[in-house]
């Protein structure tokens, strides 16, 4: 079944993300990508995963795949409190702007990035950020790792059941190791 946006009014245009149901679907994308970037928003602090939260997951994903992290909306504080000092902080709107620039070296100066993994920004705001990337940052592959379908990504979970979502997140962690 074709996935639909989580917020019912957030209908996209002709382009929309492919449904991400298992980690293996991303294998080729991860293999191809040389410089990914993980973007984590403020809702991640309140999203549980395993025995921790989605900040812990971001740290694990970053360390497993050597993926630099940029936190939006002041979420960086949660990373620092967990002892993770390698993250950078930017506004979601600043990111939406810079992601349109093919030559941007990224918050750590290690780009240009060719892949973004993103979650935790309020649904509608992530929707707009990804719209900027979809329409004007065409050099990027965009993977939305939140539970709810983000049509402007290339790959997104299709409003997945929570348990299954956590399982696939763990599979992704294994995939990037």
């Amino acid at each position, binding site marked *: 079944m074709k996935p639909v946006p989580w*917020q019912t009014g957030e209908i996209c245009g*002709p382009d929309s993300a492919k449904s991400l149901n298992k980690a293996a679907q991303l294998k080729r994308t991860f293999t191809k990508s040389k410089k990914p970037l993980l973007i984590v*928003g*403020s809702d991640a602090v309140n999203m549980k995963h395993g025995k921790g939260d989605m900040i812990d997951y971001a740290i694990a994903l970053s360390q497993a795949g050597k993926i630099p992290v940029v936190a939006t909306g002041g979420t960086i504080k949660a990373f620092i409190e967990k002892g993770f000092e390698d993250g950078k902080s930017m506004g979601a709107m600043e990111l*939406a702007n810079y992601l349109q620039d093919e030559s941007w070296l990224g918050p750590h100066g290690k780009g240009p990035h060719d892949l973004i993994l993103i979650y935790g920004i309020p649904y*509608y*705001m992530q929707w707009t950020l990804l719209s900027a990337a979809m329409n004007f940052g065409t050099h990027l592959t965009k993977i939305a790792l939140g539970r709810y379908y983000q049509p402007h990504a290339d790959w997104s979970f299709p409003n997945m059941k929570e348990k299954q979502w956590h399982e696939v997140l763990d599979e992704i962690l294994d995939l990037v190791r």
Partner: protein
Amino acid sequence: MKKKAHLKADEAKTVFGVFKGLEVRIGQIVDDEWDEPMGPTPMPSPTDLRSWDHKLLSKYKPSYMPYCQVCCLCTFGKCDLSGDKRGACGLDMKGQQARIVLAAANIGNAAHLAHARHLVDHLIDEYGPQTNLIQGPGTEIHAPVSRLATGMRPRTLEDASIILDYCESQLAHTLSAVHTGQEGSWLDFESKVLHVGMIDQISMEIADLVQISTLDFPQADPEAPLVDSGIGMMDTNKAIILTIGHNIVPAASITDYIAEKKLGGQVEVGGMCCTAWDITRRDPSAKVVGPISWQLRYIRSGKADVVVVDEQCVRTDVVNEAQKVKAPVISTSDKAVMGLTDRSDDTIDSIVEDLVSGKLPGVYIHDHHKVGAVATKVALAVMPKRRKMKFFPTKKQIQKMAQDCKKCSECIRSCPNNQPIMEAVLAAQLGNFEPLRDVYRNCIGCARCESACPNGYDLHSWMVVAAEKDCKEEIYKLRTGRGAIQDTEIRSVGQPIVFGEIPGVIAHVGCANYPGGGEDVHDMAEEFAKRRYIIVTSGCAAMSAGIVKDENGQSIYERRGGEFDAGCVINVGSCVSNPHIAGAAIKIAAIFAKRNLRGNYAEIADYIHNRVGAVGISWGAMSQKAASIAAGFWRLGVPVIVGPHGSKYRRMLLGKVEDEQAWTVYDARTGERVVTAPGPEHLFYAAETVAEANVMTAKLCIRPNDTSRGRSIKLSHYIDIHETHYGFFPEDVWKYIRRESDIPITLKEKILVQMKENKWKEKTIPDPTLLKELVMRGGT
């Protein structure tokens, strides 16, 4: 000064008789009493300030986030604009986004301008065209926005009408540019956005000036009255008339009628949205029920015996909602007739009879003289019966109904704030109403959850029932709108603002589409007021700022002064009062720097942009009006921050710190091009969280002209707020240090290390300007 006069009146009573549809055009009037020289751009056309706009837009380039990939505005379409495609008219995606931004700004301005026109025409009818316009004591530079943009100083209602003629012509031009086959460049669409924003500021200034002058509002009064506010404040022992919208005229007819008939002991008048501010400005015994987002909860409570709507931000299903609680509706504006029968020409008693009997759910009355009598008589008549009625279900009934929840999640999916409504309903099944109460606190009152619910649950009502205790305790004291800032106040603070010693002027304005409750507005205002920034409020944001009480039970307005001074919180009034905020910045240029205002827009905007550390925040920005208000501030070079929902305006105006060219100014003393620190870094910015908004606010107050002491103070606040909210010392402080004297003394060690690491070099502190023509004229 020569100006064309053009008067219109639906009906004019003169010594020669009564004229209907009167329209008078007088060739020219000469204003030869004003010796201020005319600047280069009086009453500019959409392209006269294009060069200034392009300076701003090259510094703060639009960053588009298309809300839709197609265009469906003409029958060529729908056109798919994805990728590099162009529509049948030739427009590409960026152009289309800019076009929609312009459409929104036009709509917003149309609302303010039509409001202003109605007020001016009505007041000319009531008081005559030569009625003087008075902003208040100590406001020699009255109507600074109009002076600046039009070169006119509106001294009478007739002058106001002439200025609105200009505004109407400009709106027609900028709106026509949206038509298929007109403007084709995103840059020029954006320039017109700024133009219509400026027109919007003029329209609002005229609207507020004419009502302040004629309707007994506080006039530039720092001690404007404290008024009662909150759902719990409404006295249900009296008949209650609820007024909703923005236009004072029908609401004033109600309070006047009640005063005239001495019915104050029997009838209570409360307002929602900006009408609330304007009725309390006119009659401080009226009450502010709450912001736009509380409409549904209050109507559904059934406490309002009559609902009177005027214009703008009114729930368009108000008649249906009021019918559910058997409250008659009176619509009063030709912009929002709401499908009701026009009874304007009928007798008051016959209208009252039909409303009291329930024969009609509501009526449209455009004759405002009748509204007061009809609303009051109906309220008094229906009140005794209505007080015996119960409109909300009991908790027991809700618990029973909740058993049938289909657990489909549609309520959550339709909620703008993704509130866990379904989980709260499931908790209510078990008799636990706390989760529903929590949802109430963050609810923006849109009721989309109800529309989506397959069981047709009145979910918003359930939330209100769960939060019954909170509603009763919603009792606040707010300072009603004071109007303009006095010149004398500007004289006291102009220098410390321009030098940066008062670190900023922060304006909380706009709607109530908050991501997490209105308390956020209070918290942001308090954070900066305690740091001795000047806090200004207006509109629904001004209400939300007052809904948190301290340990002594006092609101922010009770515990802080209403003067335009450091640490004070100043409510200027309703939406149309926003130009008093812009006007304060404009007056700083006139009073402190002795710059001419008259028709001198670009120079003054350049002054404000480079010197006045002002930031606008519209945390719950929702409407097209909010877009046009923001655009008016952008053209003056004042940055605006919106909440996360503001990202849906689909376009930000963002600087890039590494783009040195963008931060280069002329030193007016030498003509040299000087690279400054990236401040203000952005012109339009949606923040994801309060934390981010606070950090960005402190940062956006930085200006190239700051003195070392001023820069040091601003940086101290930025660093402190950044460390508090982000948990680390900001990495970009060194960029804002021009000389070592800019360094906050207590943080010197840390900053020196950062400067060394980044190979910092001393920079010139210029007399900054973006306008080459101002070089060699010196500056302040």
